[in-house]
């Protein structure tokens, strides 16, 4: 959960531990206004109603479940995308599904916008509040309701942390597979909203592949259950639509996740190459050999140097590209596959190669990669983390393109890359104190994402669209594509009251969107042949 816009140096740990930390005064230079044309206007009117709304909500949530003081609201003004800030109208902290339903029903009746929030670690502004909207924190939903080992699933409340699930089942040899780097803090409800990934996605899937069921509340206050402990949907795959919907379709109040048996062993290779092409070919050859590693990560020269300077674990400073390949499973299998991967790497001209002989050594291989973000934070006052996915074969082309962009914008860039699944995390180095650099970093980032789309990739692999990439959606989708996505939204929330302003570049009223221009005797598509 490292903030995407990130101040480097000694403050890292504090920010990493808690994105709610109030950094007022340290960050005003990088601050951006979130208010958009479509959000403005209604603001003042709703503000005037704050007291009456708070009173109404307190009738639903007695006690301290409603926050409306300026100081109490401040911790909620931002999520992991800390360059964007906006205190909400007020905050509600429900504890039961019935409370969530009552709040949403009330807000629906009054036409009040609602922004759901988990741990607030989103890197794309998914939980950024609205000035005229209620922020619904789900962090009081923090209980593990049931662990069912015979059926290999757990039923948990959405505020339970990702790692908290694994902690609750690891004594029996099980774990929850998706492992976003924020897993110590991020909530499973947030993971559902964002379809979070991690370094093990290629082999074990994303959140969407590991969630069996949900209970959720629609904006109307209606409670629905999707899936359960069984497999596959009984009708449309609404579970598939809801996971990754960024809090726009409903508020999740219970999650049933799939548990997996923990791998018996894991070993890793640390391999240096003189070019990213050779490293990329190694990745392709590993896959072509029928091997799906548990994790396969790549770093470029600037990232290698930053990491090695920070953690001193023996990364090869002379390498242009570094691969970490981890194989997990039964010892017999891991030992066999380590040998195969080693042979493939050497065939592709590896300049250095180490194989972990112990778990401590394996963790040391990972230490630099896992510390890559703070390591980059040490060498630059600020950095901006991007999240495109590309077909693996396009890596050299994209890296070359990024080098050109780096020259164009006068900003450095370090790359860490989930090589197995093609998910790139370029880290753009900038200094928000220098006029214009934040804007340049953002423009550089947008150009990188355009490049990702151009080579057949996508805008976001795991961080979400949120407010950050909303205006880039047209790079991937045309108006008709986006209209069909919005039609999903209209089926769930036709008033656009739930988390509006995220994901879609333009809000259009559902009724307008729904109009089919058919008039008697006046066929649409007159150019098309008739039957």
């Amino acid at each position, binding site marked *: 959960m490292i903030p995407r816009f990130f101040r480097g140096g000694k403050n890292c740990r504090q920010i990493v531990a808690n994105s709610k930390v109030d950094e007022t005064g340290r960050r005003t230079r990088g601050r951006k206004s979130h208010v958009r044309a479509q959000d403005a206007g209604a603001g003042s009117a709703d503000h005037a109603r704050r007291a009456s709304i708070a009173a109404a909500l307190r009738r639903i949530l007695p006690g301290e479940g409603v926050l409306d003081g300026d100081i109490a609201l401040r911790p909620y003004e931002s999520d992991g995308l800390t360059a964007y800030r906006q205190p909400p109208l007020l905050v509600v902290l429900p504890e039961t599904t019935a409370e969530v339903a009552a709040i949403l029903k009330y807000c629906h009746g009054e036409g009040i916008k609602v922004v759901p929030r988990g741990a607030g670690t989103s890197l794309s502004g998914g939980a950024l509040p609205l000035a005229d909207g209620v922020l619904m924190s789900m962090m009081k939903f923090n209980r593990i309701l049931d662990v069912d080992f*015979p*059926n*290999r*699933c757990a039923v948990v409340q959405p505020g339970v942390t990702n790692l908290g699930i694994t902690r609750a089942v690891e004594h029996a*040899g099980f774990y929850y597979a998706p492992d976003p780097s924020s897993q110590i803090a991020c909530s499973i409800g947030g993971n559902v909203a964002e379809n979070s*990934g991690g370094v093990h996605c*290629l082999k074990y*899937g*994303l959140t*969407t592949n590991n969630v069996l069921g949900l209970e959720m509340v629609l904006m109307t206050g*209606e409670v*629905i*259950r999707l899936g*359960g*402990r*069984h*497999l*596959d949907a*009984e*009708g*449309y*795959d*609404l*579970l*598939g*639509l809801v996971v*990754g919907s960024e809090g726009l379709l409903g508020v999740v109040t219970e999650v049933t996740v799939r548990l997996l048996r*923990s791998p018996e062993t894991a070993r890793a290779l640390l391999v240096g190459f003189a070019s990213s092409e050779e490293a990329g070919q190694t990745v*392709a050859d590993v*896959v*072509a050999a029928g091997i*799906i590693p548990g994790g396969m990560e790549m770093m470029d020269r600037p990232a290698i140097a930053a990491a090695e300077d920070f953690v001193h674990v023996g990364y090869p400073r002379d390498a242009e590209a570094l691969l970490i390949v981890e194989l997990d499973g*039964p010892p*017999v*299998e891991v030992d*066999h596959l380590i040998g195969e991967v080693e042979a493939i790497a050497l065939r592709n001209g590896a300049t250095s190669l180490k194989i972990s002989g112990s778990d401590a050594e394996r963790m040391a291989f990972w230490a630099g990669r896992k510390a890559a973000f703070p390591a980059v934070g040490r060498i630059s006052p600020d950095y901006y983390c991007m999240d495109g996915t590309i*077909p*693996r074969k396009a890596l050299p082309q994209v890296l070359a393109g990024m080098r050109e962009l780096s020259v164009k914008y006068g900003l450095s860039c370090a790359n860490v890359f*989930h090589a197995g*699944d093609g998910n790139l995390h370029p880290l753009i180095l900038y200094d928000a104190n220098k006029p214009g650099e934040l804007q340049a970093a953002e423009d550089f980032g947008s150009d990188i994402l355009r490049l990702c789309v151009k080579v057949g*990739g*996508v805008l*976001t*692999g795991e961080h979400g*669209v949120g407010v950050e990439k909303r205006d880039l959606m047209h790079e*991937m*989708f045309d108006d008709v*594509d*986006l*209209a*069909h996505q919005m*039609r*999903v939204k*209209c*089926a*769930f929330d036709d008033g656009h009251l739930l988390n509006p302003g995220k994901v879609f570049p333009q809000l259009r009223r559902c009724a307008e969107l729904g109009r089919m221009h*058919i008039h008697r005797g006046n066929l*649409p*598509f007159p150019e098309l042949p008739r*039957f």
Partner: protein
Amino acid sequence: MTALRPTDEAGVLAAVADAVATGTSLEILGAGSKRGLGRPVAAGRTLDLTGLSGVTFYEPEELVIAVRPGTPLAEVGHLLASRGQALAFEPPDLGPLYGAPADVGTIGGMIAANLSGPRRIKAGAARDHMLGIRAVSGRGEIFKSGGRVVKNVTGYDMSKGLTGSFGTLAVFTELTLKVLPAPQTATTLMWTGLADDAAVAVLSRALGSPADVSGAAHLPASVAADFGFSGPATLLRLEGIAPSVADRAARLAALLADAGPAEAMGGEPGLDLWRAIRDVAPFAATPGTVVWKISVAPTAGPKVVARLPAALPSTAGSRHFYDWGGGLVWLALDPTSADDAGAAAIRAAIAAEGGGHATLVRAPAELRARIPVFEPQPGPLAALTARLRAQFDPLGILNPGRMVAKD
């Protein structure tokens, strides 16, 4: 009835646009091999997609394939096998269950029904392997969603939303799927003589072990002969590289020694066995029975089955077997067992055992028109389903009635 058979996306668009303009309903078909799955559709025209056939691109190193919906599934399977790859969810060939020849079904039909085989428990369902789609919605508009990479959270995952929608939201024109290396070897361990509940307990222990089981089925006595066994058989499949499979098989047999000695089976007999389980082969051979597909929590499978004799007027001639570690029950009933093909009894048993769903996979059209083929949904969920349908197909022209009556 007019039959339309476009050969490209523009042709599909023209067909749907004309249907929109004239208010004519369409029955969307691939090869039609699974036409009996779902409620009967009464449509003005058929839209046959077998003319949209062929692979758009296949990049083995990128683990991705894009195909047109009318491509025969068998053709895709052969192409992938030539590069040592496969659709990991092990798609079944259900055509023969409906009296169609083997290997005629299309990939579009399989995705429209979200069909997955025994490896579902390890590799996920068909929907988990969908990366992107192009389609024509019931509004007569071409749209796309997703992409060609595994890790993608750009917008709603409509590739999943359309998988399993039985052609009631949109007509596919291109499907992009993730592919994976095919397992190099496989071994099946078999225990004999176990009762249903004991067998599923064995499957659960195995699935919770580090053995990385890729198939977990139990064949009770009533179907054993169809698979060539003399009595109940409990089966666990292990796949992967040879040294790993051998090692895991030895350790799994030791772990489950209290269930009796395990017999190992490999090679062609093993492949044939899992193919027969995948394709529900025993029930294809008895076309007179009605067939239910029941999905519940794995340990609930035998409990649901145990409730049926008391709840049904007659279970004479009923047969069942388990896949997915007990969570998938295939049940064949004599149509005279109950007036509603057993729907009420089966669905009540599922509800009493923690929930899940039952699909009337095969029955005469009269029954499928009268009884909910898919699990009926509670009010708010049914309303949401109807709203989603109306957003994508406001005139209700695509496969009307296929999933629910009056839509």
